[in-house]
């Protein structure tokens, strides 16, 4: 396709479109043929952040990489939105959670094959945001999918001391 998209815009598109933070390596991988150095990418990110000076968002660096964040001060306004993320638990949300709890560590693919429908990325994101689940590693299969598991916060939420406090489910009737 066209090459009219600048490297800067490609990085911008990736950061805004990605559901998870992106590392410099993730961003460098977008340009496999062009070989752009991580330093160059860091420069581009700085440049973008300067351009976002008057915007309500910025690129920020967190533990797992770069992501787009709404600047401080807007939360008071946004709390009026009634469709803010995670203001309800759907059936799909609870089912996904239950599968992660019982089958951990699991990949998205595992969840898909148990539920028979593809996993909504917003659900995983919502669970991660709530810190009920975390990424505990990567499966050694093609694509190295992330392995998901529940957290202590999840147990706290349900007043459980440890996972074995969850009801025992026999294999034939597993979740």
């Amino acid at each position, binding site marked *: 396709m066209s090459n009219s998209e600048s490297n800067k815009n490609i990085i911008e*598109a990736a950061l*805004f*479109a990605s559901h998870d933070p992106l590392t410099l390596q993730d961003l460098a991988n977008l340009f496999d043929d062009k070989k752009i150095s991580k330093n160059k990418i860091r420069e581009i990110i700085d440049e973008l952040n300067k351009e976002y000076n008057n915007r309500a*968002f910025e690129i920020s660096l967190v533990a797992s990489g770069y*992501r*787009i*964040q*709404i600047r*401080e*001060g*807007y*939360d008071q306004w*946004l*709390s009026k939105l009634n469709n*803010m*993320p*995670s*203001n*309800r*638990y*759907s*059936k799909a*949300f*609870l*089912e996904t959670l*239950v599968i992660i709890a019982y089958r951990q560590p699991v990949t998205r693919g595992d969840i898909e094959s148990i539920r028979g429908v593809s996993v909504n990325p917003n659900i995983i994101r919502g669970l991660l*945001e709530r810190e009920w689940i975390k990424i505990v590693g990567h499966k050694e299969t093609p694509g190295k999918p992330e392995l998901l598991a529940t957290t202590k916060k999840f147990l706290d*939420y*349900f*007043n*459980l001391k440890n996972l074995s*406090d*969850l*009801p*025992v*489910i*026999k294999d034939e*009737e597993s*979740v």
Partner: protein
Amino acid sequence: MSIIEDNKFEASVKGTLITEIPEDLFIPPDALRIILEEFEGPLDLLLYLIKKQNIDIMDIPILPITEQYVEYIKMMESMKFELASDYLVMASTLAEIKSRMLIPHDDEDDEEEDPRASLVRRLLEYQKYKNLSTEIDTISRVDRDTFLASGIIIHFKKKDIEPTIEISQLEEIFKDVLKRADILASHEIHSEPLSVRERMSNILESLTNSEPISFIKFFDVTEGRMGVVVTFLAILELVKDNLVEILQNEPQSIIYLQLKQS
């Protein structure tokens, strides 16, 4: 029209005579399997057979098409496909059309419909949607052609995002009940693990022929935390299986369970 001679068939296709089963019936089993798996049903298979031979859909040579159709479903069976009964129903429909075609036809009797007419209508109808489905597949769509852009709010106060819709309250209640279960836990004698399935059956049983029952009534705090968790999972399972639904008239009001209305 077509006639059958020994085990061969002849089909006149827009003036061209085809006298043998096309070669592409004999393709490597693996490739064949993939082709067979691709069919979305008997109508799709028939459309494929018609298209493959460039036959006019308004004038289908029923005899050879029926034979090929039967050939294909035999192959599917031999490859241990779980053949949907729909395929067999179509085979008998074709056989019926075939026999009606063989009945001497009185040319002056214009009122009798071509025995193939109803099948042709179905094929055209199905084809219309089949085409639309490939067309809709090309429309610019989210996560393929365009992507949603978003930013994360991290300064959001916990209170503000506290869920307000029924399921969340369901969990609030769940927490509540767990706490009460904790208080009563000392009375609990260690019992065998309770079965979620068993609990599902019990809940279904009590909802059968009953008015909606308050959600909280299903929790017996004397069973301890384990019993409460089992009940909760059982309700989730029942909702997931579309057996039971959760009712709530307005936020903060009582939550009821009732059998899913079929």
